[in-house]
């Protein structure tokens, strides 16, 4: 019951967050130079044609009126139509979003599993050459921009060894074998950054837990080191790691813009890049709003999952 009211409260808190996001994105876009009607008509179009397009798209209205009109439609579930493709934005996003979410899901799964394993190994082997090596690789992974990681992975695994397709998304269901095969490299390119930071966090968290009194007690009780580390310490060390998993999703969405372009993966990130270049306002606004909603919801899920990992936490 307490949990239900907590969830409702958090969902209500989402509303002002999303309104702020929408206002911010809307005005940033409209203040930036570049006229969508001009981009549709082409740089050489006559004034009459541009004015016609502006009137057709409502771009000749005052800014606040344009926002209110758009926001009113959003409340009714209508994100408008793309200025360029004329397709309803909702329809476009439903087409592109599953590809991005699947990429983010696979990427977070890879980065979590590998990041935690590497972090724990690094902690257990603290101050050994293995630990130093892992720290070096992790820092390199965090530092390398996503397009460098993407091109490097493509060059090694797709072009040189030919183990994976170079680019594109084969037809078929999202989690079918050919699609997962094609998704492997973009997901890994996205995962490396997260994996590196998760490894660093897991390491420090695990080391901190190992210094706690209850760990000392467990050792004093005569439990084997393996049981102490993996049964008692690991679960408690994971709490801060879960926190960062939710935040990682935002970084994944940011990175997907580049990675999807490099691997020709038809996701929302790539669609946003195209929409920014052509000033396709409804698509950018709709995509950002949808990504923000997913982000907020995932963070809510993260918070809820605390209760299951740490029974001391109560949502009252």
């Amino acid at each position, binding site marked *: 019951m307490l949990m239900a009211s907590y969830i409702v409260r958090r969902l209500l808190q989402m509303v002002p967050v999303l309104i702020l996001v929408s206002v911010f994105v809307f005005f940033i876009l409209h203040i*930036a*130079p*570049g*006229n969508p*009607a*001009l*981009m*549709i*008509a*082409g*740089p*050489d*179009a*006559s*004034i009459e*044609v*541009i004015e*016609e*397009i502006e009137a*057709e798209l409502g771009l000749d209205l005052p800014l606040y009126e344009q926002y209110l009109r758009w926001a009113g439609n959003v409340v009714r579930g209508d994100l408008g*139509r793309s200025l*360029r*493709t*004329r*397709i309803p934005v909702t329809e*476009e996003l439903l*087409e*592109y979003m599953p590809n991005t979410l699947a990429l983010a899901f696979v990427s977070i799964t890879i980065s979590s599993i590998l990041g935690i394993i590497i972090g724990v190994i690094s902690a257990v082997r603290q101050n050994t050459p293995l630990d130093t090596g892992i720290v070096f690789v992790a820092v390199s992974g965090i530092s390398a921009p996503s397009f460098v990681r993407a*091109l490097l992975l*493509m060059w090694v695994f*797709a*072009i040189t060894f*030919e183990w994976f397709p*170079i*680019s*594109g*998304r084969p*037809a078929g269901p999202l989690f079918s074998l050919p699609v997962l095969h094609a998704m492997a490299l973009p997901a890994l390119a996205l995962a490396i950054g997260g994996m590196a930071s998760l490894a660093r966090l897991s390491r420090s968290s695990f080391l901190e837990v190992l210094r706690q009194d209850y760990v000392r007690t467990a050792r004093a009780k005569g439990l084997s080191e393996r049981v102490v580390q993996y049964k008692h310490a690991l679960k408690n060390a994971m709490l801060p790691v879960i926190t960062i998993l939710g935040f990682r999703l935002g970084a994944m969405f940011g990175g997907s813009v580049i990675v999807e*372009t*490099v*691997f*020709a993966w*038809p996701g929302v990130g*790539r*669609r946003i*890049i*195209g929409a920014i*270049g*052509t*000033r396709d306002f409804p698509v950018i606004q709709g995509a950002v709003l949808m990504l923000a909603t997913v982000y907020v919801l995932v963070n809510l899920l993260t918070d809820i999952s605390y209760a299951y990992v740490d029974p001391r936490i109560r949502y009252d």
Partner: protein
Amino acid sequence: MSLLDDRRLALVCALIFAVGIIGMACAPEVEEEPDPTEPEEPEYDFDAGIVISRGEEAETLDIQNTTHASANTTWELLGDSLVIFDEEGNPSPLIAEDWDVSDDGLVYTFYIRDDVTFHSGKELTAHDVEASFERWLSVEGSPTRGDLGEVESLEATDDYTFEIRLEEPHNAIWNVLASPYGTILNVENIDEEGDDWGTARAELIDGTGPFMLADWRRDDQMVLERNEDYVWGPEALYENTGPANIKEITFRVIPEETTRAAEIRRGNIHIDTGVPSAEIPSIKEAEHLVTIMNRPPSLSFLGINCEAAPLDDVKIRKALAHAINREEIVEVVRDGMGDPPYSFLRPGTPGYCPHDPLCFEDEIIRYDVDQAIELLEEAGWTEVDDDGIRMKDGERLESTLSISDTETAVVQGELVQSYAREIGMDIELNTMELAALFEHLRAADHEMFTMGVGYGRRGPDTLYWYHHPGQRPAPNRFYLEHDEMTELLELSRVTPDEEERQEAFCRIEQILLEEVPWIYLTYRDYLAAHDEKLENPQLEHAMYTFPKLLEVKVLSE
């Protein structure tokens, strides 16, 4: 005895002959030894498909409402226009087998073929042509409908005759009639789909071209299948008038140039019409790839706002033109892929000056720093400040060059900046994103800018668009007042006399060199590449007119 023997002998001979004949008939066919001097006849796979890469998705397939290059390419394959330009740039039959133009240039009558059908199976008549043109004129904000000129009426006078009546002559109408924008569409489908037409359901895209749209996954791939009924391909351009020799075409959208190059090297892509400069060496090295150079009618130029001081003085404009080393720009900016330009129209393209020597030979502006300095001094810019910048009446010789933020534009801008510096002119670069640049230029507060123009579709009529005062603020961003040029531009559109039209363009080229509202920088070449297993893909002009792919054949594995 001897007689009998002779008969026996004849009988035996007849028997041997008969057995021989039967034996020959029943014997297995003896294969002829191949002549080693004769080349082996290649075998083709007529059920093969090919994959073509594109950097950007076609935003919409509503060809009457877009100028997007990917939509153009697609409609070259999906549809047909009334006429099509032949190699010399003259209109030749396609949907219309013949046509008449009235002496006053106001009435165009087209005689439509009676054997053309849409992909849906519907027979094409003059009424479909009329409906397609009517719809074109009614599309709100269509960027191309204005190219038709002032249309008074459109009418299908019978099932196979279509008439366009203009309010005033418009020679340039052929440019749009012969382009994919003039594709005849099945309007019934458009009415059914409303706003969604061209964007949503593939089965509603109904043209008459050699290929039909089978599947479209946006930003991923588009699949076209052979139209087995197609037999009306343009004879002026293709020996094979249909059906095509390949069964399927897949367009794959790959925005990143490095990825695109990797895919064609791996053999996953069979045609790339624009190999990026950085990838040219590796593409040329690949043994399974054939490369073809495209020399499209396109130009990059530096435009000048002739009303903005100090560039309102023609001597300054001309001095800057002399200071620019075009050969070096082609080498540095285009990696040697192109030519230094000295006129708007590229030599060899339709409309280029037919005279020998050129009628504007004397006006050509070549790289000559001494001449540039002389002109500046003639204009009174004789003093020099501590930075080496020329001065006149206390004013520095300075200007701003607005450019887009692409690497090519920035490098080109920096070169221009350094050339100007050599003659004592200070140029500040104003770099901005493309969308912002277009808006900035439209506001007319620019001094100089760089831009590219492709004139494959409009031909020399592009000069009208770029320099007629009625085309301000865009694409006429030069603000040059020149009555003679304006009159000549207008004459070029209305005169029925082709020779007079040609002379007008020659004189306009001359005026542009005298007045220097723009400085030509490069004619750009493009490299197309295709897999060696494709025969005759006809990619020589693919950068501005994509072929209908009627001739291409795929060699059997």
